């Protein structure tokens, strides 16, 4: 075994430093979430809890239970819907093409750059007229619509790489537009669904603004807003807030673990020569 070179050693020291700084907040968060209210006051945030307790986790879960369920419901549906619509759009914009399809794509792409704040008032008005204000359905509709541009962009770029000869082969084999989508394009799409899915899931799950203005009370309250509400108005229960943050982060971590392997899968290999 050879000794590492000096540059290597410096590299490791630097890396260790960066790891330390990025793990620090997580560490603080876990430690605080396991402390009793007294320990929170009497110990440093970085110190481990002298008398660890799961009480804050249970307390936070009690409060966050319903909002987490709400968030999970609308995030799941909005992610699935926006990905499916993005996939259909991407397919039509790349493989069918029609007069003006480039313009349609351009207009869709502009949607990515519309700031949330500009649409807030019309959004609330539209939702109340539709009778969807303060409902899960309303949040699903909003997030789906807002996700279409970016999903279309992602799927369009992915489908650009599907060789044209594959489409031509399918057409001469007798497959119509819908059959080609269902039997050729969709089965080639899992890697893109994973990428767009993770992107959409984290984006929608972490959204605060739409949730804040489109929901109140408990029926449709998203977890992001509920987490912010844990802060309280007079006293700060640090331990419960930190425990809430853990509950809030959990679903996203799980999604990453499930879809992670698809993110790196090369599905197109072997379709054409090489």
């Amino acid at each position, binding site marked *: 075994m050879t000794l590492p070179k000096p540059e290597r050693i410096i590299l490791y020291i630097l890396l260790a430093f960066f790891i330390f700084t990025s793990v620090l907040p997580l560490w603080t968060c876990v430690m605080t979430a396991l402390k009793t209210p007294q320990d929170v006051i009497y110990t440093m945030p970085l110190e481990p809890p002298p008398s660890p307790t799961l009480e804050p986790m249970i307390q936070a879960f009690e409060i966050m239970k319903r909002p987490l369920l709400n968030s999970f419901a609308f995030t799941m549906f909005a992610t699935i819907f926006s990905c499916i619509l993005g996939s259909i759009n991407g397919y039509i914009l790349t493989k069918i093409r029609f007069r003006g399809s480039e313009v349609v794509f351009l207009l869709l792409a502009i949607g990515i750059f519309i700031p949330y704040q500009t649409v807030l008032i019309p959004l609330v008005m539209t939702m109340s007229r539709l009778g969807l204000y303060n409902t899960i359905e309303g949040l699903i509709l909003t997030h789906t619509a807002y996700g279409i541009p970016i999903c279309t962009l992602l799927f369009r770029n992915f489908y650009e790489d599907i*060789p044209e*000869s*594959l489409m*031509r*082969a*399918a*057409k*001469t*084999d*007798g*497959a*119509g537009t819908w*059959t080609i989508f269902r*039997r*050729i394009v969709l*089965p*080639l799409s899992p890697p893109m669904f994973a990428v767009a899915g993770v992107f959409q899931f984290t984006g929608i799950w972490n959204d605060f603004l739409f949730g804040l203005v489109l929901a109140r009370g408990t029926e449709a309250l998203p977890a992001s807003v509920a987490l912010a509400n844990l802060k309280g108005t007079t006293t700060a229960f640090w331990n419960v807030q930190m425990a809430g943050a853990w509950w809030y982060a959990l679903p996203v971590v799980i999604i990453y673990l499930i879809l992670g392997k698809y993110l790196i899968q090369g*599905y*197109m*290999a*072997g*379709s*054409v*020569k090489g």
Partner: protein
Amino acid sequence: MTIKNLTKKYEASVGVENLNLEIKDGEFFILLGPSGCGKSTTLLCVAGLLKPDSGEIWLGDKLVTSVERDLYVTPQKRGVAMVFQDYALYPHMTVFGNIAFPLEVSGKSKTEVETRVKAAAESLGIFQFLDRKPKQLSGGQRQRVALGRAIVREPEVFLMDEPLANLDAKLRVHMRAELKNLHQKLGTTTLYVTHDQVEAMSIGDRIAIQKDGILQQVGTPEGVYDRPRNMFVGGFIGSPAMNMLEGNLVKKDGNSEIDIGISTFELPDWAEEAVKEAKRSEIVLGIRPEHTTIIAEYRKNAIQAKVSFVELIGRELNVHLTAREEPLIAIAEPTERLEIGKRVWLAFDESKIHIFDKESQEALF
């Protein structure tokens, strides 16, 4: 299959211009030409994957494309099967799934699909690969799967777009023979696109040569080889390529001669008639390397040339020479001793010469 006045233009280039072709039932018909000559465009128009700007396409007695009558049958309904250069196999399906796809799409019963796929795989020798994915196959095997997907439908017409271009040389020669066999067995009308003239000569019943979107000549392999209609066809068909020497037609003692600068070439009697109608005297003399012989002594009509290099290509030598600063090739026996720089005489087989008008590039006979 009939193609009438087919034209397809692209923004920057001409795809096909005013193409007329009549392909007989059961014929193995080749579209040959250099890249960008419009042969693939023609094929895509026949398949219905491209809409032409004008013209008509008939498959049998069924009109499938007519710009004038605003008629266009979608590729799905044409009953043609296509084989692509890059094979275009569906990567997520097994070999079985790939071959079965056209049958499944047309709604055949499960048992029928299974019998027909297995029969097709059997005949192509890929039966043992039915469960594999395309990426687990070699180039030649993928090519067979693509063929299987085409033959399993029992289509009226096969369209093949350079199907052998991605295979290595040895396999290509092998697959060429197999394609020919397959065609003889099935008797399906085949339109085959290639840029490889050897491939075209060896498998085609008839060949159409295209250049810059314009049809140059249609004929049997022997026909286009022995009687090229213009300089392009003469130079494109045959390997090594035809020798071309510029010269002038002159009259001497009532006989026609070609003055090629360094010497003169007296025309044989049979060619005399044909050159009578020549409008201009500037011509190009064409002679194939295999009709060019190296001789030691001068004799009538021979020209002098210098050996520039010699290629041994197995059973014969390709001798590269220069005469009048122009390159020429002659075929010689490998036993011949030819040093570089040596001056030799070249004799031409007078019954095999070609004479082209220099300006129009058309053959005079």
